[in-house]
Structure formats: C-alpha cells, structure tokens
C-alpha cells in the first residue's frame, strides 16, 4: 500500500495534450500542419544552400504556355510555361512565413499590453483601451492597406522592407486588438482570484504576479488564439497579394489567384484550383486543430 516513490503530478497542460493525442482526426490535422511547416523549412534551407529542387526552381519553364494538368505537370503550367505545382509549393513558404511572423508580432504586442492594462487598470488601462478602440474602429482591410502602402519600400534598421516583410508587419501591427482585449479581460478576472490575493499578501512583486501567476493561467488562450489567428493571417496574406500589395517577385497563393482571375474566363482553371486546394487544406486543418485545442486546454470545458 505504501508507495515511497514520489509521484509526478500531471499539470493541466499535460492533461490537455493527452486528451488531444487520443483524437485521431485532430492528429491528422496536426500532421497536415506539420507538413506545411516542414515544406516551408525545406524551401528555406534549399534557398540557403542552393539546392536545385522542385519548388525553388519555379522560374524554370517546363513546357508550353497553359498546358492543362497531365502526367508531366500535375497542375499544368501558367502563361510562362512555369509549373503551377512548383508555384503552389513555393507559395506555402510565403504564406506560412507571413502568418507566423504576423502572429508572433501581434501576440507580442497584444499579450503584454492586455496583461498590463488588466492588471494595473487606471490611467495605463485607459490609454491602452483608447488605442485599441481607435484601431479597431478603422475598417480592417483599409488599415492593413494603409500600413502596407506606408511600409512599402521603406527601410527599417537598414533593411529594405520588401514584399513579404511589408505584409507581415502590416498584418501584425494592426491585428493585436482581439488578443489584447481577451487577455485584459481574463487578467481582470484572475487578479481578483484568491490565489493572486494570496501572492500579494506574502509580498510577491507585481512582475512576479503577472509572469508567474497570471500569464500561465491565461496562456492557453494565447495558444488557442494563435492557432485560429494563423488561419486568418493566411487569408489576409492571400487578400493582400491578390490586391497587389504582397509579394511581387516570388509566387504566392494570392498572386496565383490574381493571375487566375483573367485566365478563368479562358477556361484555364488549374492555377486557381491549385492555390485554392493549398489554402483549403491548411485552413481546414488549422480550424479543426484550433477547436480541439480549445476543447482540451480550456479548464472550463474540461471533461473528466
């Protein structure tokens, strides 16, 4: 009966991830997401080391103009005879990079601001709320467009802001409002909880309370938000590229759809199809995975 070994407890995180692991469909989605990321990493390293493999050789002409999908070119060719499949694969890099960088930027702005506003309240809170209310009162696309136009071809810390950088800066800097609001509300709720009062009563500093007590308790929301935010940023990149504000020199799904707009009337559907399938798969996988994350990490939805 007496067990002398000290048992390791299971944290809510481990608990949640275990439940996630048991769901097959979710794991399939996770595998799809990982695949996209691996592909992105592969293209980056291929460019870095100068490997001559499929996606990086998208500029190479592989056939005549507008060849329909066939044995040689699975998704056919575009107007220049370039492989649509290669462009689609290369577009993954553009999309994932933009979505990842934009998500990180917006979370790095939104989470600390939300935590500070919710914890300290008062004057600081009012300023932060004022800023995000103003930001969110401007139509989203208009704001991104404005940022993209302003940032376009400017330089930052000596780096010229080209295509992709402009896009993720524009998206990241404008879309931290949602997570900021969410974290602010959650922190306001948690800071009245007795465990925070206890921490104050034995003399924890404010920064310790925020970092050791409050943020770990709202961090599952950040993870969930990240997974859902990622999808919307992939879409945002597509829209920006479609509008001609995105990556101009390299393939992206948005640019492909933009090209396909005119081609479609001539019966050339394969470029549109390739871009749409790529977007559809990652969106679906991220949405299902994000919902599953919410189900398993939110303690309120916790089922025994």
């Amino acid at each position, binding site marked *: 009966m007496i067990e002398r070994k000290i048992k390791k407890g299971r*944290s*809510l995180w481990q608990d949640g991830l275990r439940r996630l692991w048991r769901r097959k469909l979710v794991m399939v989605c996770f595998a799809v997401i990982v695949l996209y990321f691996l592909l992105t990493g592969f293209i980056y390293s291929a460019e870095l080391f100068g490997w001559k493999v499929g996606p990086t050789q998208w500029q190479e002409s592989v056939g005549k103009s507008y060849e329909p999908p066939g044995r040689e070119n699975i998704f056919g060719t575009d107007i220049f005879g370039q492989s649509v499949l290669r462009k689609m694969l290369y577009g993954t890099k553009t999309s994932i990079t933009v979505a990842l960088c934009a998500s990180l930027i917006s979370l790095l702005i939104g989470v600390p601001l939300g935590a500070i506003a919710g914890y300290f309240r008062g004057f600081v809170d009012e300023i932060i709320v004022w800023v995000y209310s103003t930001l969110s009162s401007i139509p989203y696309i208009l704001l991104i467009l404005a940022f993209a136009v302003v940032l376009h071809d400017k330089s930052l810390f000596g780096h010229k802001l080209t295509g992709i950088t402009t896009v993720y800066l524009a998206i990241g800097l404008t879309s931290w409002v949602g997570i900021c609001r969410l974290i602010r509300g959650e922190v306001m709720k948690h800071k009245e909880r007795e465990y925070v009062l206890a921490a104050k009563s034995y003399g924890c500093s404010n920064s310790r309370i925020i970092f050791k007590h409050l943020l770990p308790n709202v961090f599952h929301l950040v993870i969930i938000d990240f997974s859902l935010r990622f999808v919307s940023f992939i879409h945002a990149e597509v829209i920006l590229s479609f509008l001609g504000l995105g990556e101009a020199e390299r393939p992206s799904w948005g640019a492909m759809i933009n090209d396909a707009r005119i081609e479609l009337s001539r019966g050339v559907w394969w470029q549109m199809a390739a871009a749409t399938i790529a977007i559809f798969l990652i969106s679906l996988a991220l949405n299902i995975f994000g919902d599953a994350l919410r189900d398993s990490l939110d303690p309120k939805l916790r089922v025994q």
Partner: protein
Amino acid sequence: MKNTSNMNRNTENTNGYLLKVEDLKTWFAIKKGLLRRTAGFIKAVDGVSFNIKRGQTLGLVGESGCGKTTVARSIVRLVPATAGKVIFEGIDVLSADKSESKELHRQISLVFQDPFSSLNPRMTIGNIVGEPLKVQMGITGSELTERVAVLLAKAGLSSDYINRYPHEFSGGQRQRIGVARALVTEPKLVICDEPVSALDVSIQSQILNLLKDLQDEFGLTFLFIAHDLTVVEFFCDITAVMYMGRIVEQAESEELYRNPMHPYTRALMSAIPRVDRSSAKGAFGGEVPSILNPPSGCPFHPRCPLAEGECLKQMPALKEKGGHEGQGHFVACWKC
C-alpha cells in the same frame, strides 16, 4: 540590528497585544458620470476597533456583506484603508515603509475561504507552499523542498504530494495546502477568512482541529472570520459580532454565548439550529438595509424589536456593559 532593538521596545509597549486595530475605516468611493466624480461612499468598514493578545483567537462574525472580509483585507493592505490605525507589534501597518512591509508580509499570513480558487492551478504544491519562502527569503533548492515537506507533514499531508497539482486534490486537502502555505514563513498572526465555510461539515472539524493543533505548536495568534456561530464558539477566545461595518457586541466567547445582550446577537444565537427546539424563536424578518443608504441612528433599528426614540437618531457607541464590570463585555446598543 538597530531595527530589531527598536522593534523589541515597541513590542513591550503594546502590553501583550499582538494586533491593535483602532477605529479602522475602509470606504469605497462610488464614481459616477463621465468625469468619474465621487458620488458617495460605501462604508464597508466604518470604525472597527479590537485588540488581539498573543496566542489568542478573536472571532469576527456577522452575515454576508457586513465587512468582515474587508477588515481582514485592510489589515494586510490588500484593500487600502481610509482611516484608522492598525498596530502590529509596534509597526504602524497602514503607513509601513519598505522594510517594515517585508516584515509584515512574513509575520501576517492569510488562509482563504475557497480552497479551489486560492491555489494557483498551474503551480505544483511544492511551488505553491514554497513561494512565500522564495519571495521573502530567497530560499531555493533542497532547503526549500525540505521546509515545504516539513510543513506539508505538519498540515497532515504526505510530502510525496510535492510535485502534484491542485486539481488532483479534494477540497479538504486543498485547504490543508492553504494552511501549509500560510504557515511556511512562521508567521505570528494568521488571518483565517472563513477557512471552513466552503467545506463539508465532516471536513470542517478536521481543518479546525488542525488549526488548533498548529496554534498550540507554534503559538499562533488567529483572527478568525466566520459566519457560523457554532464554529466560532468552539474555536475563539473572544468573539466580536459585526453588523453593517461596525462591531455591535464583543465579549469572551463563553460570556457572549451565555449572555448575548445586543438584539442582533440574540437573534443570531436563536437562529442556531438546536435539537431541543423546533423553530427559531426571536429571529426576525427583514433585510440588511442598503449600505449605500444606511439608516439614521443605530443601523440595526429598522429590524430591531426594541428600537425607539434614541435608536432612530444617534449611533450608539461600543461600551462596556453587563453585570460584571471589567469582564470585557462590550455592546453598542441604547437599550441594553
């Protein structure tokens, strides 16, 4: 060194009292309108005074919303007090400087009501109980683990639990963890804010016995807040009854329970269910008046069966009354 001797002198001056609370007032401003002008005050605590001797337990009872918890939180400065004085071992708590604050954080600790929200769900038991030591004295590593294990054992928990998380425990076990956290810094005063009211009756007595044992072992002084009179009768040396932010009656527990004088206290006593009595006699109807708009004179007069004349006009002060002078039975009532 200089600080310590200074403190010792002050300790002698306080005549065996560990904590003195004098005319404590905690008011919350009600802000209205665009300009956030102060439209009035909620007088959650309105002139509360009491003293606690070393090793004693003072019980603070009253119905919900009467300001018990606010008194506790004002003493540890979780809520800023509006006026009054709190003296702990010669330290003026409400105007304490940094080094005094540090001392106070160590010497006064809290046990909370809800064992489910008082423990951080993302921290292990070892970290929860050990954090006060880490924050206040910078103790880490194996010394920390050792001290935490000792405290867990004292609180009746296995030291094997050190790597577990709060959600793996029952309510009673969680409250034991809360008690262990409160005692880990070896405080002199422990403020228990309804430590058993969220627990099953069978668990309540376990926790109360644990607190009593720890009091004997460490010579603790308790400020014990409760709304359950039977719990207070068992646990406290002195009982103070609060109503709408004031103490209306205070006496040694035995005396108070044998001879309640204030009509409010009497009504509370008669509301204790007893086997030999079918219905609660002397209980009264009515609601607690709005604290935003308190009644004139004695705040209890709208519900009081004895209220007349003076009661409606003037606030009665807390005065020593009763047959035996010097027994320390204080009542705030015009009629008794």
